C-alpha cells in the first residue's frame, strides 16, 4: 500500500457551518416571515378603518398569548432583518470583508437585533408612548 500523501482537500471536505452562513439564511427566513407578516399589518389598518367592532376583533387576537407571540416574533424578524440588512449595506460599500471584521459585523448585527427587540418590548410594555 502506497504511503498516505497530504493533498489539498476539496471544498466540500472542509465544509463547516459558520456564523455568517447561519445569519445569511436567517436573513432570508426573516424576510419571508415579514412578507407574510404584512397581512397582520393590513388587518390592523383595515380593522381600524372599518370600525370599533373590527378593531375589537383584531385586539382580541393580538392581545391573546398567541397574538403576543406572533407580534414578538414579528418584532424580532423585523429588527434582525434590519441589522442584517445594514451589515449588507456595509458590505455593498466594500468594507468589512476581512475575517475579523466579517465576524465582528455579524456578531454586532445579532447582538443589536436581540437588544433592540428587548428595548422595543420594554418601551411598549411601559406604555410611555401611548
Amino acid at each position, binding site marked *: 500500500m502506497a504511503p498516505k500523501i497530504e493533498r489539498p482537500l476539496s471544498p466540500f471536505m472542509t465544509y463547516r457551518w459558520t456564523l455568517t452562513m447561519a445569519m445569511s439564511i436567517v436573513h432570508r427566513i426573516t424576510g419571508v416571515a415579514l*412578507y407574510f407578516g*404584512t397581512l397582520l399589518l*393590513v388587518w390592523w*389598518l383595515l380593522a381600524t*378603518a372599518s370600525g370599533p367592532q373590527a*378593531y375589537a376583533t383584531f385586539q382580541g387576537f393580538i392581545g391573546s398569548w398567541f397574538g403576543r407571540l406572533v407580534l414578538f416574533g414579528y418584532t424580532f424578524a423585523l429588527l434582525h432583518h*434590519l441589522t442584517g440588512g445594514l451589515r449588507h449595506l456595509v458590505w455593498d460599500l466594500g468594507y468589512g470583508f476581512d475575517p475579523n471584521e466579517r465576524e465582528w459585523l455579524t456578531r454586532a448585527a445579532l447582538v443589536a437585533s436581540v437588544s433592540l427587540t428587548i428595548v422595543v418590548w420594554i418601551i411598549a410594555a411601559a406604555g410611555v408612548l401611548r
Partner: protein
Amino acid sequence: MSSSKQSIRTPLARVRGLGSARAGTGDFWQQRLTAIAMVLLIVPAIVIVMMIGRNHAGAQQTLGSTPVAIVLILFTLTSVWHMKIGMQVVIEDYVHDERLKLILIIGNNFFCAAVALAAIYALLKLSFGV
C-alpha cells in the same frame, strides 16, 4: 438549452453582444434604495405602532393624522417593493420548474399589489374620514 447540443458555439459566444438578459441591475439597485429608505422610516414607524392603544377612537385619530399617514404610506410603498423583489429572488433560487416558477412570480406580484393597495386604502380612508 437543447440547441447547445447541436452547436459548437460556446454559450458565451451566443449571448455576447445581446446586452443584459432582462432588466440588468435594476432590481439590485431598487432593493438597496428601498432598504435605505426603510432604515430612515423604521424608527418613526415603530414609534407610531407603539403609540396606538387598545382604544379604537384613539387609533383612528392617530392613524388619520397627516404626518403618521404619510410615514406609513411611504413605509408601505418601500416595504412592499422591497419584499416583492426579495420574494422573487427566493422563488428564482429554489423553484426550478419553469411553469411553477412563473405561477409563483405572478402570484407574488398580485399578493404585493393587494397588500399595498389594502394598506394605503385603509390609511387614506382614515385620513379623509369617510
